[in-house]
């Protein structure tokens, strides 16, 4: 198992940029949330690769914290999406641009 660290980081960078593209292109809130998931997962992958390169467990610990943060974020975001759907009868984020404050 002699995978260079650069290749793992490169994979994480590609996944992060794909998630960023999805976040910017899609206007459906569910797709945007899924793209955020991809980006967080890429960040976790970068931590794991860094930890594996050093041979210590710090990277995995940080991955677990990212996982906990993601779980909390997803639950709140999905509740917000349900609220938004009840309010606007649509998942289009442009429909919510009338919210002021």
């Amino acid at each position: 198992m002699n995978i260079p660290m650069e290749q793992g980081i490169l994979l994480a960078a590609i996944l992060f940029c794909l998630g960023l593209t999805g976040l910017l292109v899609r206007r459906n809130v569910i797709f945007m949330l899924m793209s955020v998931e991809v980006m967080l997962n890429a960040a976790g992958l970068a931590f794991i690769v860094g930890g594996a390169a050093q041979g210590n467990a710090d990277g995995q610990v940080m991955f677990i914290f990212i996982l906990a943060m993601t779980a909390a974020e997803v639950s709140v975001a999905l509740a917000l999406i349900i609220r938004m759907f009840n309010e606007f009868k649509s998942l289009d984020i442009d429909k919510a641009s009338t919210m002021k404050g």
Partner: protein
Amino acid sequence: MNILFYIASFLAIWATLMMIINKNAVHALLYLIASLLAVSVIFFILGAPFAAALEVIIYAGAIMVLFVFVIMMLNVSGAEQKMERELLKPKAWIGPSVISAILLGELVYMLASQSVHPTVMQEVPPAAVGKLMFSKYILVVDLAAFLLMAGIIGAYHLGQKEKRNHHRYLKNENQNL
């Protein structure tokens, strides 16, 4: 082992790409699950079996099930899909793609300009992760617990139905406020 890494990487990138360009929310979700499982294989190859198991159990298991529930609950209509198709024209996606490509190019340039580190990928057992987490990072574990508690309360509060006032007097009072 190296070829496994490359296959899993390709699968992860391809599944993520398909997730972005898919029109159907459920299909996109299934592609996202495939991508997460591929990343889990990569974790296993990199010598992080505990992280790989957590990725499958929590990401692909719990979080994606939440997504499936919400998509089934909201019952997205065909009109939305037509609108999404409009958004997938080149005029809509070329700008963000260029921005992301520039960012990716910078990251690749930074990686390429460094000398390659020959790394020793050694397996880190779950026991080491647990020991480190509950000794050095115990404060962060507490903070994560606070965050999860706040998440639970926030989701509960946002998920509540709005209270409607049926009394005429109360309704007028609310309008005045």
